[in-house]
């Protein structure tokens, strides 16, 4: 009886042990994943805010004191459960749209987005219509030919036309290009 209890106890503890052995890394892994996800989230937000005291850098890339303050604030707000957008709005309200690294998509600033997009979309069309499809340029070049040349061509056309309809010189009987 006593041995039985010991066996049952040890089975129970083994099971607990086994379970923790299985669970522990999972919990640990979850923590790691959470930390990584948090880190990713933090990077996303921090790389959208400019370092107020440097040229061209985000707060993420900068260790200036001002950037550090902003990074701390971002960390706090993320921990408080605020979303990416909410945090950006918070900083925009505090420092103006200047704190964002891209121009806002409202007001005059929308042009900064619209113009490149328009160029990228309209450009291929313009190239297509203006250059690619203008095969009639050949006509344009002919129009400035000297008069003698045009007359000579005219003569050739007429004689060609005559030849074309003359079965003697054109045994195939094909009618030449009269254009």
């Amino acid at each position, binding site marked *: 009886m006593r041995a039985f209890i010991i066996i049952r106890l040890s089975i129970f503890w083994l099971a607990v042990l086994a379970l923790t052995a299985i669970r522990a890394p999972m919990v640990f892994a979850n923590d790691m994943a959470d930390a990584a996800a948090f880190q990713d989230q933090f990077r996303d937000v921090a790389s959208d805010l400019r370092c107020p005291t440097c*040229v061209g*850098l985000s707060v993420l890339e900068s260790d200036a004191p001002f950037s550090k303050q902003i990074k701390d604030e971002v960390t706090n707000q993320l921990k408080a459960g605020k979303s990416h957008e909410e945090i950006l709005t918070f900083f925009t309200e505090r420092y103006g749209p200047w704190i964002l690294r*891209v121009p806002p998509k409202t007001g*005059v*600033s929308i*042009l900064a987005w619209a113009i490149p997009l328009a160029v990228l979309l309209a450009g291929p069309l313009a190239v297509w219509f203006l250059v690619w499809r*203008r095969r009639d340029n050949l006509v*344009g*070049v002919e129009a400035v030919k000297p008069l003698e040349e045009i007359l000579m061509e005219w003569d050739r056309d007429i004689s060609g036309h005559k030849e074309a309809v003359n079965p003697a010189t054109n045994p195939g009987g094909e009618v030449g290009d009269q254009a």
Partner: protein
Amino acid sequence: MPAHLGFMFLLLALIFSLYGFGASIAAAWLRHRRLYRSGRMAATMTAMFIVLAAVVMWLSLFARDYSIAYVWRNSSNDLPAFYTFTTFWSALEGSHFLWMMILAIFTVIALWTGNRDNEHIMPWVAASLLAVVSWMLYLAVSHSDPFVMQLPAPTNGLGKNPLLQNPYMAIHPPTLFTGYTALAIPFAYAIAAMAYGDITEGWLKTTRRWTLFAWCALTAGVALGGHWAYVELGWAGYWAWDPVENSSFMPWLLATALLHSMVIQDKLGHLKRSGIILAILAFFFSFFGTFITRSGIITSVHSFADGNIGPNYLIFIATLLVGSLVLFAFRAPSILPPDAGKVWGVSKESALIVTQFLLLTLAAVVFIGTVFPIVSEAVSNQRISIQAPYFNAFAPWIGLAMIVAIAIGNLLRYHSAKIPGGRAVLINAAVIAILPAALFCWRGEVFKTTRAWPLGAQIVGIYLVMWSVVCLCADFRQRLAPFANVAGGVFARWVAFLRRNTAYTGAFVAHIGVLLAILGFLGNYRGVDREVTLRSGETASLFGYDFTMGKFQVREEGNATLYEAPLLITRDGREVGTVYPAKSKYPTKPELMNEVGVLGGFWHDLYAVIVDFEKKSGETVTLQLHVNPTVRLVFMSVVIMVLGGIIAAFDRIRGDRSRDVAGGVWEHGSGGRA
């Protein structure tokens, strides 16, 4: 006293350049040969006096003559000789001086080496160049005078900016300025062609070579700047899309577009006028960059009004642009396309047009991103920032299109002809590319990227680049094929090939360089970093590497004191190397500067920078550790691009296929030596 001497030299140079400008204009008007020669001699004297003034400046720098304000503000007694030399261009007046000097020297070279076929437009070339030189000299004696006195002379200078005490700062600005100023020659030839009324026989030959030279210098200059940022600023990147970088990138893009336009001009005789416009814009943008970076306008519109140099620059570049465009509007119609009509269709010329469109679009994006904050502040009084994420929203797509354009464009031929089996090449390349792409992904540890979008972008990008490289190689093979029967063995065959295809080979090499650069840029998507605080002997790991901190040490190097934390890097117990990130302190400046520790490999750089350290004992050090993939590849690719440019410059291209010009006749003063 040297200050007076230097200033006098500059003044003399100004007088000579003004005379040279007037003489050249008159020579062009009267078609007077000796007058032109006189103008050319004046240009030579101008350059000589500028060089003399520069010698005075250098001597004063080495003599530590603090009675010159520029020397006083930018150097100090502790400065090593090497950096004393580079102090010449380490501030506003000096870099203006350097720019002016290189421009004057190039003016002289361009005028004396001018092709005989271009002789009748040379007066216009001289006038355009001397106009620019005169204006720069005017600024140098008025608002940007490097020889302003500081009396009584202090005993020590304020010291040089520590950021500029870096070997790259010795070579980066001169290289970049070489590129900027070399673009003045195509510009001057463009103006001359318009003033004369047509593009002349040797025009393309000369402008193409100068543009290639400028392009190589710009490519190298931009890359050297990137490398400087990488090793000196300590944020682990080489390109931040900041206004200064952008303003060096825009002329590069325009010069590249100009080169592609010139290819069509060479082969088909078309796009002469677009070449002229691009030459004007390329030069305009090289000045525009200086304008926005030195006028203070970039920090705020309101700081612009403070200095005098800003408005002066604005007047100049506005005159430059408006003048050139007005000239273009009146004179361009006389520059006619050749009699051969254009049949664009699916052909190389169309691909070149698409390439130009992509380059110009990217230039437009960079331009908007650089000037829009200024416009916004001026128009709506709203301050906004435009930084990397904005450019990164557009640039990768344009880059993607460029990869495809390079692959397909090179397989096409002129006049809608195609290489035999072109479609099969494209498809075969798509299969062949899988192997190198997979190899690159595996060796480059691309799959360690954790997030979906960067991972996808990398795989697609790497695969397309490999596909494009295979297409280029297939085209190269195709070109090589006809030379198979050349007698004399492999060597003779290659010589024959290279002699006939010098330009093509250069383009091939440069395109491979561009593709490798894109491959390198893709590495940015998988960079990882970590901030750690270590004590001596402690270890931190990142990306499979272990960083063990050694003994914190303080040592002297040159004029700087370094606070150094050696990091032993191991991987799987094997020693990889040691890096020495440090903070440095310069005698004349209070702040601590970053000295990064970089250990480079082909696949990635290990990059360590000290964020902070315990100032009293040096026991704990906070470090930022980075693994930066394929940075080496980016800089290697630039070397390849420049190499391609140099090869292409050796090509002896044909003259221009425009209609014959009955020019070249001087009406006056044509006696004397030829």
